[in-house]
């Protein structure tokens, strides 16, 4: 609980954060940047978990625990994604999204 700041303001911030992530995901040309945008989306949701837990159910811990899980999963996912990108780079010597089109049908 932060004095003077209501849940609405924080949720507004996380929503903005989320849509920045979506925007980045759709517009970035580089695979690494896309990965970073995904992290933004994830972070927005993590903050939501924590905030809702703290503001609405202060005597419970599920939201906080979930956020730790999400951080762990996100780390694993990022490692995997980076590994894929490195392999892709070895194949086509590029991490540009437009160069990965050869994998269609």
């Amino acid at each position, binding site marked *: 609980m932060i004095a003077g700041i209501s849940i609405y303001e924080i949720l507004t911030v996380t929503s903005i954060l989320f849509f920045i992530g*979506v925007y980045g*995901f759709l517009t970035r040309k580089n695979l690494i940047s*896309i990965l970073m945008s995904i992290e933004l989306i994830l972070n927005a949701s993590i903050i939501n978990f924590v905030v809702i837990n703290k503001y609405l159910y202060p005597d419970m811990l599920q939201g906080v625990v979930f956020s730790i899980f999400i951080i762990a999963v996100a780390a694993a996912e990022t490692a995997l994604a980076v590994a894929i990108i490195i392999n892709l780079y070895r194949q086509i010597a590029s991490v540009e*999204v437009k160069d*990965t*089109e050869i*994998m*269609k*049908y």
Partner: protein
Amino acid sequence: MDITYTILIPLIPLAVFLLLGIFSQKIKPAVSGLIGVVGLSTSTLLSFYTAYQYFFVHGKINGVYQAIVQKTTWMNFTDNLHIDMGVLIDPISVMMLIVVSIVSLMVHIYSIGYMKGDDGFTRFFSFLSLFSFSMFGLVLATNLFQIYIFWELVGVSSYLLIGYYYTIPSAVSAGKKAFIVTRFADLGFLIGILIIGYYTGTYDFETLNNPEGAAILNWTSTSFMGLSVLTWALILIFIGGAGKSAMFPLHIWLPDAMEGPTPVSALIHAATMVVAGVYLVARLFPMYYFVEDGFALNIVAYVGGFSSLFAAIIAITQTDIKRVLAFSTMSQLGYMMMALGVSGYNGHEGVGYMASMFHLFTHAMFKALLFLGAGSVIHAVHSNYLKDMGGLRKYMPITNATFLIAALAISGVFPLSGFWSKDEILVAAFEHNMLLYVVGVFVAGLTAFYMFRIYFGIFWGKDTQYKHAPHESPLSMTIPLIVLALITIFSGFIHFSEFIAPDRIGFEAHLNYPLAAIATAVGLTGIVLSYIFYKKENDLADKFANAFGVFYKWTYNKFYFDEIYLFVTKKIIFNLIAAPIAKFDKKIVDATMEGIGNKTVVISKRIKGMQSGKVQDYAFSFIAGTVILAIVFIYLWTN
């Protein structure tokens, strides 16, 4: 009388067929010939044992030959209607066992010499065994369905053997022709069987043939277009029989079937398979006789009589000796059908039936002998045509003697077997139908004439100069000739009438001297005419041919029946029926299916572009979808 062992008679050739067929590449020709002969010898011995047991020991109870049946239910349709498999032993089936086994054994032995050095030697013997199996099975069948199964099996083996030289196009097409024509006839047979099954509720020969049985007594209860339904069924079954027995107008396959190796012609197209039609009518004889007072039987008689005359006329003009023999076979089969057609049922009235079976027996022997003799000649001069032969008596004494015996027998000369059986046929015809009797006597004269025409043509006539001096065939070929010649000489003295009669009681048959004298006189006239025409090379025959002019040409071309069939099938059936059906199939049925397939391909090609391979496009679709769904749900919830 326990008849379980008779099942071995067909099963041994089947085993031989499987053995030779499966290991055809591994078995040496000499061995495979031996296996075939040994297998069939066993069947022959068993057949003789069966005949002895049946005719002389156990068969007769209270003066009547019993039909002994052993069977097991194979397919159960309803409580009443079921199809059995089994063996039926009665006078005609035992007689047929003897015929089939003797001729088949002789042909097996003969083939060892005739087919020597042929690439497909083992294949040939395996097919021969398959045929023997099917024919034995046909003979022993207990019901219409079983006979139909084996009926088709002999058809298949005949097809395989006619097309044995599969590299020669004419042999291949002859095989196809035989199969298709008989198949067409078998359609009638099948419909007949189904009608009988539907209206009488049984396929069993013994039940159907019982003169006091429901099948025969109730024939009036149903009718269709003025005739009893059962009469229609019997006519349809006769169509099947006519196809197999090469009766007019389904005879066109038989002359072409001569493309097969000569032993095959002797076995299948002279002695055994082609008599299956006669056997079938004889098998159902009580039904033919009693239903509609023998209406169907009259058809059998007239078709037989006409076929015999028709074929005898054509046989006179043919120059291929095997084709002459083929038409002769057709003519003699017509004789048998005619004899069945004019037969009565009780006691001496059944002389036609007896004569038919008697002639079947003697004809099988001497016609097989004629074919094997012709094969021996063909083996020596490597040609089927009379023009390449002549004066062969000096080179081939055994073939000459045996061929002469067979030719005399088929001409009805005393005391050879043909004399006795032909006499009985003419007696039967004389007693029941004057017209058919006259036809029969005329055909007897024609038979003697054309048979001696080829006899003189082959063994006398002009002194042809041969490039390689022809020589007598090896022992394996002459021994069967001699055996069959002996049978031909002596089998006439068997008192057939005591063993075989429609009521199975048997009767005392006497030689009818005036009729026998007339027949013999006519036969001798034919021989003498032939002697004048063909003994020495002269131009009498050509002069006569020219005198007959158009008629000769027609006969030489077999009255253009092949051409008529071709016209009907190619011009009429193909163009008017088959072509529209094919068009319908292509333009409507196929087009619908193909259209659906093609449209799917076109649509999928169009929408394939949506799958761009750009991750962000997919993500955009996903997010856009989510947003739209969210808006929809919010809208629904708030209202």
